[in-house]
């Protein structure tokens, strides 16, 4: 018996398009604008502007806590925001920064970030006087809670490099959450929530977060409720921040590719749905 071979329509072919083709086109769409930038406009969002203003309004002598929860698998995006915020903080004269992390990979990226920014000396900052790095603390939210109550006690009285905190001018009047003017949280996942639960909620310290764009949907209710003052929304937010600071860098240069990539994904979703419903697979339902 000879089986009848059904003729495939264009929609059937589209619905079963090999995924490799999709990726090749995506690669071309992303590489082309990197080599030949189009210069699509980058409007500044209210969230980024609010973040920028918060740092810009800091006064000499103010102290901020920078929770540097970086991750190697997320640094490609979060590194853009983390670095530009760090740069802005270092550019502000008299601002003092205390850093720590509840992410095991944080220490590696803290040092890298400072190095990529040209070192503390290039901003007239001095370690121990303007910047102190406490390092990694295991325990996630419990570590946040302990640090909020007693920084020196939790760290054993030493910084990440083993130097005594009591000998550092910056640490003479700083030991708990309420000693800080603002809290900045770089978050590779959901650590912004741990800091919010243990620093913002009990002590009322204003938290500004640098999350992955993929997590922003989840934190939106907390932003609306005022638990998080503002955010830098992934690479896009970092690009806006670079423009606000007048230092367009890697984030801004990647925005053309980002925009075209989104248009491509949107087209794929629309075409994919049309193809599905028009094809035999969709009609069977």
């Amino acid at each position, binding site marked *: 018996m000879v089986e009848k071979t059904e003729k495939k329509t264009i929609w059937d072919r589209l619905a079963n398009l090999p995924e490799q083709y999709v990726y090749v086109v995506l690669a071309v769409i992303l590489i082309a604008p*990197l080599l030949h930038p189009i210069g699509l406009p980058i409007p500044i969002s209210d969230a980024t502007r609010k973040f920028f203003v918060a740092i810009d309004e800091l006064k000499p002598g103010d102290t901020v806590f920078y929770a540097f929860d970086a991750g190697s698998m997320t640094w490609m995006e979060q590194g853009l925001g983390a670095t530009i915020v760090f740069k802005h903080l270092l550019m502000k004269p008299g601002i003092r920064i205390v850093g720590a992390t509840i992410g095991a990979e944080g220490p590696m990226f803290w040092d890298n970030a400072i190095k990529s920014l040209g070192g503390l000396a290039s901003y007239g900052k001095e370690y121990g006087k303007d910047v102190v790095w406490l390092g990694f603390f295991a325990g996630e*939210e*419990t570590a946040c809670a302990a640090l909020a109550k007693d920084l020196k006690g939790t760290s054993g009285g030493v910084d990440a490099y083993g130097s005594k905190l009591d000998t550092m001018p910056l640490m003479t009047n700083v030991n708990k959450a309420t000693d800080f003017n603002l809290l900045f949280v770089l978050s590779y996942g959901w650590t912004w929530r741990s800091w919010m639960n243990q620093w913002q909620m009990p002590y009322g310290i204003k938290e500004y977060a640098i999350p992955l*764009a*993929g997590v922003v*949907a989840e934190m939106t209710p907390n932003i609306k409720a005022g638990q998080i003052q503002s955010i830098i929304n992934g*690479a896009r937010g970092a690009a806006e921040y670079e423009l606000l600071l007048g230092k367009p860098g890697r984030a801004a240069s990647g925005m053309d590719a*980002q925009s075209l990539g989104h248009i491509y994904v949107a087209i794929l979703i629309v075409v994919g749905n049309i193809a599905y419903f028009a094809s035999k697979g969709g009609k069977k339902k």
Partner: protein
Amino acid sequence: MDIVVEIGLWISAFYVISVYSLLWKYNKFFKFAEHTLIGAAAGHFLVMGLLNIRNLGIGNILGGKILYLIPILLGLTLFARFTPKYSWVMRWGMAFLIGVSLTIYMRSLVITQITAQIQDTLKNVSFADPMKIVNTIVVVGFVFTTMLYFLFTERLTPKGPASYIGKIGRYGVMTAIGYYLGVTVMTRLAFVINRLEFLLFEWLRIPR
């Protein structure tokens, strides 16, 4: 250029290409990169954990804070699970771990994730002008219908007017999922773009 930096660039480029080669098909290069990543991550986390115990645990004990012995001993009990005869000892450490974590989470969780969110939803209730009325209906309406969709699904799904409450809630959930998808795409594209920039401008040194 520094030879060490140059070698680092080539190794990095090799791993980036190996990882993305998965998009073509599962292959040995991807497998190698995957195993390297897991091995390196496990090693890094182990070292960071040990450093924490040395600096914050043993360091404090040697400094005279003898109470730090308690968490170290409780931590050691977790390894008892490897001996069937004494595996029950692990419960002590685990009980302490869960007890402390739960207490700390619960202290703030109810406020940050429940009461503050209810307060904020109710703050949106305003009938001052037409736009605010629309906003109130959208926000409060979707919050309640979405909650009902999850709470009383079975009762609301049968035919009848009540079934529409569940349907509206479902649209709310779908809208939220759409938002999730959009921002997830944004993150994934940012990852790819960053690595493409690395390959093009740092490794291949194509002038910008």
